[in-house]
């Protein structure tokens, strides 16, 4: 982006959403991603959607890693059993999210999860609220966004994705998809760090993009892939965002 264009971009953004500039962000710690998303990280006090298959734990670990790097308690709203297999708390602890920080709520139906998330987002002391959902409807996402903006609490909607396909619009600030990809074999027998493809499906004012990252470590930090695999550090593909 040329400097003139960037300046214009910033001006338009100021006109459109004056509140957004004051938002705190959680940096990913990876230069390529932080440079791409607005504000240099994941905006706190906003709703973010993380899609992932129910038959792998990539999306949940991605969410746990983000929350691990914030401080304060987390409200985790579980969906129905059919949506995701039950959460295993030691796995969250493995991504750096300590067990005593997480308050679990078996909310049940999607409606109940949304209700509980909204209730949690009204509580400024929380670090974040996670809700397991089959989809995040437009109206509900607006309500959550409003509640998150007021309290400054990070809202993460974990969406169980049956198959990649068309996705209905909603008011989430960013929409991600995390999917595992084959990791390079380490020089020792066994398994190395897992690799994820991180897709930014939608982000206001930015193009959709994909990165290959190393799964988060015991402190919740992602790693940039490429040291083993020789993959590029820049987005794999860039395309114009839909709106």
């Amino acid at each position: 982006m040329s400097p003139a264009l960037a300046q214009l971009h910033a001006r338009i953004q100021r006109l459109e959403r004056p509140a957004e500039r004051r938002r705190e962000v959680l940096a990913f710690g990876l230069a390529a991603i932080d440079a791409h998303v607005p504000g240099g990280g994941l905006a706190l006090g906003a709703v973010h959607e993380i899609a992932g298959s129910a038959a792998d734990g990539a999306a949940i670990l991605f969410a746990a890693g983000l929350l691990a790097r914030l401080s304060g308690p987390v409200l985790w709203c579980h969906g129905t059993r059919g949506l995701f297999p039950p959460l295993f708390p030691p796995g969250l602890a493995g991504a750096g999210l300590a067990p005593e920080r997480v308050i679990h709520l078996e909310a049940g139906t999607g409606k109940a999860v949304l209700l509980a998330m909204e209730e949690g987002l009204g509580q400024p002391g929380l670090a974040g609220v996670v809700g397991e959902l089959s989809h995040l409807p437009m109206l509900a996402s607006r309500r959550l966004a409003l509640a998150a903006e007021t309290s400054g609490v990070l809202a993460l909607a974990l969406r169980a994705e049956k198959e990649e396909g068309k996705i209905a619009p909603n008011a989430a600030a960013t929409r991600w998809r995390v999917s595992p990809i084959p990791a390079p074999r380490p020089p020792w027998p066994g398994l190395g760090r897992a690799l994820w493809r991180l897709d930014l499906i939608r982000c206001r004012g930015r193009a959709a993009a994909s990165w290959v990252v190393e799964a988060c470590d015991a402190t919740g930090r992602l790693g940039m892939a490429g040291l083993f695999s020789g993959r590029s550090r820049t987005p794999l593909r860039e395309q114009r965002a839909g709106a």
Partner: protein
Amino acid sequence: MPAPDASLRAIATWCLRYAPLVSLDPPDGLWIDITGCAHLFGSESALLADLAARLSAAGLAARVAIAGTPGAAHALARFGVGRDIIVPADGLAAALAPLPPAALRLPEEAAALVARLGITSIAALSALPRGPLTRRFGAATLSRLDQALGRAPEPISPLASPVPLAAHRAFTEPLLSAEALAAAIGTLSSALCQTLERKGLGARQLDLFFERIDRVVMAVRIGTVRPSRDALHLSKLLLQHLEEVDPGPGIAAMRLAARLAEPIAAGATPAVFSSDAGKPDLSMLLDRLANRFGPARLYRALPLESDVPERSVRRRTVCCHLPPLAPSSGKTWPPHLPRPSRLLSPPEPVSALALLPDHPPAQFVWRGKRHRLTAADGPERIFGEWWKSDSETFAVRDYFRVEDEQGRRFWLYRRGDGANPATGDGSWFLHGFF
């Protein structure tokens, strides 16, 4: 030995722990109106199970039934088939139909007449036309039938609960609208909170009674994680349950009573105080969630020392009517043992092909889908806990972390060590996803 009535009264007073409205049904029965209270136990069945377990632990043989009307509950507890009966709202007539007419608490003469005429079930009795039924058996019989089926109200006369901390309001005009009731709840809770403040107390459990002009009394109960005298907070919790209250012809009076109260340190403003410096006070959020979803569904998952994965997590509920939140211990699970983020329970059997007995499989089929594996790590051997059950004495599980062609990582285990059949039959299971 106390008089039968006195001991029944003692049990009734004890039953106030379940709901604010408890009434005697002499000589041997009790009614507990659990409307608006079952949520504190998670569900009606959980409340019933708790009640039955505690009564039997106290050495009392009791039969318990939950139904939509006092008459039906009385009948089913005494004449119902099986134990621990819960009748859904729309199944009242069907549940009562096969019971003998004696279950309806009929007057003696009417009962004898019904028996003499060969009417052996409530279904047969209620099939009779109403006019002749009244003429032959008396108005009391018809009204008992209507009360049991919920066609006529049956006010129960609740025990006066011994609560000195209460606020009461009677209304000149009966209240009908939700807005009017909400306003009244606000007034009552600020009045009660002033009383609590004077005494240096905070409420842990509140009962709100609605007295209708047709003498029916209804009640809701809420609990808090920490003692609270924040009128706004308490009235919000009460308002969550307003929709469960049927105002009927109108509410004539309301009473708000603090059933459990505990001291709060003076000077602490309950609205915003923090427990430890810098730590946010979550008790209000927890109250709202616990009262809406039930305290059993709100918990922390803490480590438990066990090698068996499914036993390594202990749920510690954030409960309303038990001691408040305990401080956290800072303990976690052993960090060097990788654990999945989602666990299948129970583990699902997969058909797997391993080249050598002590090796991870090369592929496995789960729910009809084949996963070819490219890498694996393991085994991590986990032994059965022989002190838990005999069948675990020699049991062994060998866990492998595996990755398939698409990069998905699974947690598989083989039952047995692959050599000695006493340790397991060598079948494979999928236990979790990383």
